[in-house]
């Protein structure tokens, strides 16, 4: 046996011996929580769903449909129509007519009242929509109920109020709407992303054609139903499920005046290229690899919560996830120990169980990507730590994971994994932290943890990221602009700044 291997073995043995003498917390089975499933028998789910065009649910001219599943169980939930080229064209025409005949003729305050109606109805149907979101996407009911739904309806509420106040957002300008907007959204926050796109567009007087992600069409279609029940004039909102091809048709449609895309940087670049020179307005909200910086003078226990929330919330399927932890070397050991203990209490399992913290990975494809990058991390020499939680047999699952001993040049430190995997690096000084944090093509978000006020203002000012959280993480509000620097995209959603993308100024 080589001396190298023997040395390593000895070191491991010593480590284990030392650890055995140290006090350890035991998070075992004393007082286990019983299953607490959210009741889903009040949820209305149509087994076959069409496209929502001109205020009606219609069969696709493409004659194609696809199955959408529950990623936690792999069972089929419904058969959903797939929009082909002709369907996309029909939707755009419906949006044009909706704009010309109804929406552009309404007084702004009246438009606002429609959006208020939608907000109210989402509020009333909150529970049902949350369950549907968890069923179709895999996220824990605790999150869809307490985060996705409240934020989605707040987004409609907030933007309803802008409809008749746009002149205040753009003083000294004449403000008018754009027309038909094409919107493409991802699968990580299906309903919330639909809200982020539709609410401001409508408030500013536009009509929309929206394509939900191919694995998560159901809540967008439920939103379509709400639009119908709210008596929204036909064509103002059109929802056309489909995959990449449908999205491409929408992007390339000559009479769509503006494209809004949230998704991977890779596809974002394709769209940017495709729309170049067409005169179409474009906003992109793409990927990220956010640095969560923890200084030695941070309130450490809350910082650990922030780290956990930053990467394991929504299984890490978050563009602004804090997927890199930059921890000051002097407190690295303490923080890593706390992280280890903390992931032991994360509960992974049935998304519809109210006590589940970590749900299912959205698709087999995404699971494969995560596995590949994690294997790469191990191969490149980073030290892997994983929760020892049991994984259900069926469905797509990945345990909360973090790597320590990561360097800037590791793939897991540079590429977006979009899963519950954290890469941990150390730094010695604030300057080093800032340099490492910014040394990446992305720039969506960042976290800064310190008890010192001046340091917060200094470091956040130096972050090349569109959203910086100080002593917190993953906080969203409709009044707060969200969007990236660099390859994380351009344009902002939410707040006064988010209106800009949806108006013409003169």
């Amino acid at each position, binding site marked *: 046996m080589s001396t190298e291997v023997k040395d390593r073995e000895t070191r491991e043995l010593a480590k284990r011996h030392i650890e055995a003498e140290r006090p350890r917390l035991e998070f*075992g089975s004393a*007082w286990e*929580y019983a299953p607490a499933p959210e009741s889903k028998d009040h949820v209305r789910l149509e087994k076959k769903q069409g496209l929502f065009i001109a205020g009606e649910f219609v069969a696709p001219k493409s004659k194609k449909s696809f199955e959408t599943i529950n990623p936690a169980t792999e069972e089929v939930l419904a058969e959903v129509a797939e929009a082909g080229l002709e369907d996309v064209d029909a939707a755009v025409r419906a949006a044009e007519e909706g704009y010309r005949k109804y929406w552009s003729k309404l007084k702004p305050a009246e438009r606002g009242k429609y959006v208020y109606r939608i907000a109210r109805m989402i509020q009333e149907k909150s529970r049902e929509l949350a369950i549907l979101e968890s069923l179709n996407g895999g996220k824990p009911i*605790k999150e869809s109920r307490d985060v996705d739904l409240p934020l989605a309806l707040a987004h409609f509420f907030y933007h309803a109020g802008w409809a008749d106040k746009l002149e205040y957002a753009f003083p000294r300008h004449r403000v008018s709407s754009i027309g038909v907007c094409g919107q493409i959204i991802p699968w990580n926050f299906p309903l919330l992303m639909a809200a982020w796109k539709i609410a401001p567009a409508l408030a500013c007087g536009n009509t929309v054609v929206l394509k939900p992600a191919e694995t998560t069409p159901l809540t967008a279609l439920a939103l379509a139903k709400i639009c119908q029940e709210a008596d929204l004039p036909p064509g103002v909102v059109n929802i056309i499920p489909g995959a990449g091809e449908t999205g491409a048709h929408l992007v390339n449609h000559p009479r769509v005046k503006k494209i809004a895309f949230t998704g991977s940087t890779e596809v974002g670049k394709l769209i940017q290229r495709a729309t170049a020179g067409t005169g179409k307005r474009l906003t992109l909200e793409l990927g990220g690899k956010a640095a969560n910086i923890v200084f030695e*003078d941070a309130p450490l*226990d809350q910082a650990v919560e922030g780290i956990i929330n930053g990467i394991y919330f929504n299984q890490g399927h978050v563009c602004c996830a804090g997927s890199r932890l930059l921890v000051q070397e002097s407190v690295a050991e303490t923080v890593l*120990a706390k992280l280890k203990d903390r992931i032991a209490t994360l509960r992974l399992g049935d998304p519809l169980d109210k006590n589940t913290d970590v749900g299912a990975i959205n698709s087999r494809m995404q699971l494969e990507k995560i596995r590949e990058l994690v294997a790469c991390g191990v191969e490149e020499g980073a030290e892997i730590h994983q929760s020892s939680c049991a994984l259900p047999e069926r469905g797509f699952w990945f345990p909360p994971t973090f790597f320590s001993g990561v360097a800037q040049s590791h793939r897991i430190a540079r590429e977006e994994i979009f899963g519950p995997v954290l890469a941990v690096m150390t730094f010695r000084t604030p300057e080093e932290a800032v340099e490492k944090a910014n040394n990446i093509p992305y720039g969506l978000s960042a976290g800064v943890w310190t008890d010192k006020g001046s340091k917060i203002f200094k470091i956040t000012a130096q972050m090349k990221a569109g959203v910086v959280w100080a002593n*917190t993480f993953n906080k969203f509000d409709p009044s707060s602009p969200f969007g990236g620097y660099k390859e994380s995209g351009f344009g902002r959603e939410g707040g006064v700044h988010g209106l800009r993308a949806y108006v013409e100024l003169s």
Partner: protein
Amino acid sequence: MSTVPVLPFDPASVPHVDQVGIEERAASLGKRSIKKEAKKTGIRLAISMIDLTTLEGKDSEGKVRQLCQKAMRPLPGDPTVPHVAAVCVYPNLVPVAREALAGSGVKVASVATGFPAGLVPLPVKIEDARRAVAMGADEIDMVIDRGAFLAGDYGKVSSEILAVKDASGDAHLKVILETGELETYDNVRKASHLAMAAGADFIKTSTGKVAPAATPGVVLVMLEAIRDFYLDTGRRIGMKPAGGIKTSKQALHLLVLVKETLGDAWLTPDLFRIGASTLTNDLLMQLAKESSGRYQNEDYFTKD
């Protein structure tokens, strides 16, 4: 005689607490859904952790005797319902409680050291604790000098705890921080570390005379202090929230906080107590509801 070594206390090394962060975490643990068997087990566990308390000027022998009956048999006729952990009274009532509880397994806890304000000379505090133990108290709940603490005189606070621990002999010592008067989470964390370093067996939130008392945020801060103290020293210190705990929902939330912060080892009356008076009946009503499926009526549960 105290056999536990006293540790140095360095106020500068106590971690700071972010208010918003700690409250969010405490609240999110309150969203755990405890149902069916887990709820019944939790309720029974909570009952076994109660320090059934009466601390009123008008307490009498009769009152305490009847309270002790309730302590030993919270639900007459149901042997699955355990007795509570202890009865907590003022020193004069200790002999009554001791006699009434003899052989039952329920401990006698006495407040001492000029409870609740604690603003009497140290010799009086020491004598107060010594006599309570002599009269039969198994446990002493002492108060710290909050004025001294807030003025930064940590040495005084520590030495008082040491002295009372000494005077308490074999009785175990709970140190009440009176978190409502400390006000900030930073202070609560600091006081927790100070008390543990000075030899407390338990740290306790409140006297029950000042609100706010055992809020989820405060409890979580103290549990985190206990956790870090344990990981540093290997010593397990107990925790007792008291004041304002009236419902099963609150009690179960407390148990969740303990379970997910400290783990299995602390889910026992040896390391976790709940100071309460009316909580017992709500726990019993919830237990009955879980078993029978019917919502309950107060009249069916004794008010001793």
